[in-house]
């Protein structure tokens, strides 16, 4: 993550931050963070969509909270403090869904609690929200959340189409073309293929040069 748009003199614009989250530093395809849930959940588009929206909400709320209260967080204990902030928002969303949207909760309740441990959220708090003003932090959180949502939908569509021969639950082929892609190993292959595609596009845009920012460590 050396040649990213971080730590400039002036905070980047909203559009630049949104595009950075969706393409330039896409959490799944470029940063290779939170791959485990990205594989586990994305057997269908609908599952990916629901988890993606939940992550988007938690990312924006946690980033904004950290930007607001970072003066009260002692630097030596900032990681536990971030974890508590994320956990508070995840629990609040969990209870709200259980109370007001029981139908949705029945499907995503299991996944929502897992968001506490998503590497992408805490890494944006550490890398961006802890040192940038409120407004750019909001756009960064929104961009990263949208990037994760986008990645889950693309992976989900790819795997649902190839694995189950359907899109959004509607069958488009008579039988299951490649069941392999609905299985967990197929999820990793899907991410690998899409990651290669992202790199190829980047390379083409950069005029044949290798892309600068590639994936970091694959954290949970």
């Amino acid at each position, binding site marked *: *993550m050396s040649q990213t748009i971080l730590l400039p003199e002036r905070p980047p614009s909203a559009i630049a931050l949104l595009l950075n989250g969706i393409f330039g530093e896409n959490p799944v395809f470029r940063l290779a963070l939170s791959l485990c849930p990205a594989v586990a959940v994305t057997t269908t588009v609908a599952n990916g969509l629901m988890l993606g929206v939940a992550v988007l909400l938690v990312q924006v709320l946690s980033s904004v909270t950290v930007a607001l209260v970072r003066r009260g967080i002692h*630097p030596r204990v900032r990681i536990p*403090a971030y974890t508590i902030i994320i956990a508070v928002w995840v629990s*609040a969303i969990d209870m709200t869904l259980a*109370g007001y949207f029981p139908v949705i909760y029945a499907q995503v309740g299991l996944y929502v609690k897992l968001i506490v441990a998503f590497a992408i959220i805490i890494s944006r708090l*550490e890398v961006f929200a802890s040192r940038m003003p409120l407004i750019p932090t909001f756009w960064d959180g929104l961009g990263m959340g949208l990037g994760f949502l986008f990645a889950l939908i693309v992976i989900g569509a790819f795997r649902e189409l190839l694995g189950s021969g359907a899109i959004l639950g509607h069958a488009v082929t008579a039988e299951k073309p490649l069941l392999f892609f609905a299985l967990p190993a197929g999820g990793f292959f899907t991410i690998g293929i899409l990651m290669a595609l992202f790199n190829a596009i980047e390379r083409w845009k950069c005029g044949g040069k290798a892309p600068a920012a590639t994936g970091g460590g694959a954290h949970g």
Partner: protein
Amino acid sequence: MSAPATGGGGVPGAAVSKAPTWAPGETWRIVLSMTLICAAGAAILGGVYLGTERYAEASRQRNERAAVEDLLSLGPGATVAEIRQYLSPARDAVIYRAGGGDAAASAEAAAAAREFVFALDGTLLRSGDVAPAAADAKGLLPLGRIFAATRAGAPAGFVVEGEARGYKNRIRFFVALDGDWRIAGVRVVEHEEDPGLGAEVATDWFQGQYAGRGMEDVVSMDVTKDPMPEDWRGALRRRGAADGREWAEQFGSLQSREAGHPIYAVTGATISSRALTDGVRATILHFRRRWALLEPYLHDAAGGE
């Protein structure tokens, strides 16, 4: 992360290998910082809980009510009365409360609840109205609930809540009985059995084995490790998808053939299978005894309205 650490109170240029220097009083600032964050988080979560809990409870009750209606195949026009059973704090009396209680669900349910208290030998100790707020009072041990369905004044069946000690934790289930005290269905509503093994007791095909058994079948109901006959397995697997009446026409003879047979255990999960079977039997036998005590008084109460 490759990102450089922020702040940290270290002196610029200090060697990384050295133990970090701690400014005086820093420990206390850290403790204060974490305490404030945790307290604020707890306050927020407490507020959200207070704001959402009654809706979550209401939706749980709706789900339960739907399960009851589904188990008894109640159409429109049927009413379901909920009766809660408790053991007194001194464990010397069984308390029944009918009506009232779930004030969150609807306004008419918030009316006064009727309470009947029986000694363990079956004599009525007292009866009378209790305030709805008194429901689920402290010290009372819940013994599960009874949902009594009536259609046009005639009893249309019961659903009794029961609990069994499963392989890992308790298994909570509903047993539905039709007007002839025959099992109309069993549904596991909460369990923590192992996926692929004990959790199979919550599937339609396993629970379907209980339906259709009469009282005398229930008394002697046992569990066997014998393999399930293929025709019966096929019939049970079709039970969830098919229309109830059609299924009964097609497989009714098979069901009556199997009613006297033991329950076929889930392969590799005999403990869970036996736990649910024993729990279903105990729940039905308890309920039969209690209902014989309670019913005459309930009729008086209903007649008075």
